[in-house]
C-alpha cells in the first residue's frame, strides 16, 4: 500500500512536469516510461521452505548466522553446527577460512583446545605407539602442502528428486584451501605400522551424547592402507597459511585430496592402525553409495533391498557458474565475463565449456591458474548477449580421466554424488 501510494504520486508529478512544459519547450518525449515492475520494490526474504520440489536456489535457504571466527554463513543447523558458504565466496580459487563451510556430526564440538595438553596419538597395530604435540608436528617433520577441495558428501542434497532426509545443502558445502602439515605416511612410519594392519582409523575431538561405542557417541572414519590416497593425505595444521578455525578442525585435520570431506576428520587426535575391517556406523552404515555407475539408484530398488553399497570415496567432476548469478539484469550487447570454478576428485579439470542456450551448443571457456589437480580451477568465458531475453547459461567440466559432467540428475537415498551440469538463468534487457 505504502509503495502504491508513492508510485502513483511520483508518476503523477512526472507526468505533470513533463506534460505542462513539453509542448512549449518542444522537447522530445521519452520513449518509454518505466513500468511498475521496473520500479524499486522492497526486498523479499527467500522462502524458508522449498520442499517437496527441488530447492531452486544456489545455496540452502536458511538465514545467515554469525559464528566465532566466521563471516555470516547460511545456517542449516545450530547444534551441532552446519553452516554453508554463500555463493559469492567462490569467485576466487581459494575459499577464505572465515567463509569456509562447517559440518559436524556430534554436538560436543570443541570450544577450546589446550595445546599444552593436546597430543596426536598414533596407536593400534604399530611397533612404536607415539604421541606428538603440535610443536612436534612443526619441528620433527618436513612440511607438505596441497591445494585441495573439501566437499561435503551431501553437497547439493536439496536438489535431489524425490528429496531425501539429511542436511539440506545447496551447492555451498564445499571449499578449497591450501593445506599445510605433515604427510600421513610420515606419521605412520614414525609409529612403524606393522604388517597385518588393514586400515587406518581417525578420530577427532567431537563427541556425542549417545551410548558409548555407538555412532551417536564417536565419529570414526577409516581409509584402507592399500589405498594410494594414503600417500597423498596430509595432517594439516595450517589452512590458507593460518591456523584452522575451531569450527574447521583446529588444531589439525586430516586432508584427503580428491576424497569427500567425510574422511577429513576435524580436531584429529587419534590415528589407529586396524587389523580388522572398520565396522563402526560411519563406515559400515553411514556414508555409503550404491555400487553402480555414478552411484545412482531408485527408491524402488532401495525398497526392494537390491542395492549393494560401498563407502563413499572420490568426488565426481563438477563445475559451477559463480557470476553472473542472476541478481542483476544484464544489458544487450554489453560484454560480461561468465566466471566460475571446477574440480574433480579424479584428477585435474582440463576442459571447461560454457553454453548460453541451456546446453544445446557449447564453447570453450578459458581456464584460470592451475593450483594442482585437487584444487578449484577458476574459469572464465567472455559473453556478449546479442539480443534481450532470457538465457540459460550452463557450464560443463571435463577432467583428466575423461569424465564429463553429465546432464542427468542422480538419485540415491543418502543424497550423495550430485554432479549434473548446473544452469544459471540470466535476464538481458534492452540497451535503448
Amino acid at each position, binding site marked *: 500500500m505504502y509503495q502504491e501510494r508513492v508510485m502513483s504520486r511520483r508518476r503523477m508529478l512526472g507526468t505533470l512536469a513533463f506534460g*505542462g512544459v513539453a509542448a512549449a519547450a518542444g522537447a522530445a518525449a521519452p520513449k518509454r*516510461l518505466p513500468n511498475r515492475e521496473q520500479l524499486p520494490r522492497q526486498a523479499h526474504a527467500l522462502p524458508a521452505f522449498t520442499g517437496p520440489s527441488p530447492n531452486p536456489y544456489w545455496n540452502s535457504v536458511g538465514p545467515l*548466522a554469525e559464528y*566465532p571466527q566466521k563471516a555470516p554463513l547460511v545456517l542449516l543447523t545450530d547444534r551441532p553446527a552446519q553452516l554453508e558458504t554463500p555463493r559469492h565466496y567462490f569467485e576466487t580459487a581459494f575459499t577464505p577460512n572465515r567463509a569456509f563451510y562447517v559440518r559436524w556430526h556430534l554436538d560436543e564440538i570443541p*570450544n577450546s583446545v589446550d595445546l599444552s595438553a593436546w597430543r596426536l596419538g598414533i596407536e593400534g597395530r604399530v611397533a612404536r605407539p607415539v604421541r606428538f604435540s603440535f610443536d612436534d608436528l612443526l619441528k620433527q617433520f618436513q612440511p607438505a602442502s596441497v591445494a585441495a577441495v573439501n566437499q561435503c558428501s551431501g553437497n547439493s542434497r536439496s536438489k535431489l528428486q524425490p528429496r531425501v532426509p539429511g542436511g539440506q545443502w545447496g551447492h555451498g558445502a564445499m571449499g578449497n584451501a591450501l593445506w599445510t602439515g605433515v604427510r600421513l605416511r610420515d606419521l605412520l612410519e614414525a609409529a612403524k605400522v606393522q604388517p597385518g594392519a588393514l586400515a587406518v582409523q581417525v578420530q577427532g575431538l567431537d563427541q556425542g551424547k549417545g551410548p558409548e561405542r555407538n555412532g551417536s557417541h564417536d565419529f570414526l572414519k577409516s581409509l584402507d592402507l592399500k589405498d594410494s590416497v594414503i600417500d597423498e593425505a596430509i595432517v594439516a595444521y595450517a589452512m590458507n597459511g593460518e591456523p584452522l578455525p575451531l569450527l574447521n578442525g583446529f588444531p589439525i585435520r586430516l586432508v584427503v585430496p580428491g576424497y569427500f570431506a567425510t574422511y577429513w576428520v576435524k580436531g584429529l587426535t587419534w590415528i589407529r592402525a586396524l587389523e580388522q575391517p572398520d565396522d563402526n556406523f560411519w563406515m559400515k552404515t553411514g556414508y555409503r553409495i550404491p555400487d553402480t555407475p555414478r552411484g545412482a539408484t531408485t527408491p524402488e530398488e532401495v525398497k526392494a533391498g537390491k542395492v549393494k553399497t560401498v563407502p563413499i570415496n572420490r568426488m565426481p567432476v563438477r563445475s559451477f557458474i559463480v557470476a553472473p548469478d542472476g541478481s542483476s539484469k544484464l544489458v544487450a550487447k554489453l560484454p560480461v565475463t561468465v566466471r566460475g570454478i571446477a574440480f574433480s576428485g579424479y584428477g585435474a579439470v582440463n576442459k571447461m565449456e560454457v553454453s548460453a542456450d541451456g546446453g544445446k551448443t557449447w564453447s570453450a571457456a578459458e581456464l584460470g591458474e592451475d593450483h594442482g589437480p585437487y584444487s578449484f580451477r577458476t574459469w572464465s568465458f567472455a559473453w556478449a548477449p546479442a539480443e534481450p531475453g532470457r538465457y540459460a547459461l550452463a557450464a560443463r567440466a571435463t577432467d583428466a580421466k575423461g569424465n564429463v559432467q553429465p546432464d542427468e540428475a542422480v538419485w540415491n537415498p543418502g543424497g550423495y554424488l550430485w554432479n549434473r551440469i548446473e544452469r544459471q538463468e540470466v535476464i538481458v534487457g534492452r540497451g535503448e
Partner: protein
Amino acid sequence: MRNARIRFAAFLAAVVAAAAGILYAQYDRGYYAPENLGSIRQSAPPTNSDSAVYAVEAYPLYAPELAPGEGREVVQAYCSTCHSTRYITMQPPLARETWEAEVNKMVKTFGQPIPEDVQPIIIKYLQAHYTPASRKK
C-alpha cells in the same frame, strides 16, 4: 528588449523543467521502505592471551519454532538430546514412513532411549506437521 528577455527566461525555465520532467520519467530514486530482512550484529573481537589455550566463545543456538500441536513438548524433550530440533525443521517434507524410519533409526541405530509408549507420539507429531500433505511452509 525587456519582453524578449522575459520570453528568453521563460523559455529557459521551460527547457529546464522539461529536462527535469524527462529525467523524472527516466529514473526513479530515493525509494526507501521501513520493511527490511533484519540485520546481524557483529561479534566483538575476542580477548586472547599468549597461553597454549585456543578458545572461542559459546556457539550460538538458533532454536526453531516447532509447529504447535499435540506431542510438541515430547518432541522438544527427546529430539534435542543429541541435536537441535532444526534437524526437523530443516528437512524437506518427508513421507509418513520416512519419519517413522527416522525415529526408529534414532532409537535402534543411535541408541536414544525413547520409551516405547512415547515413540508413537513423536512419530505421529512429525507425520501431522512435516509430510508433503501436512507441511506447506
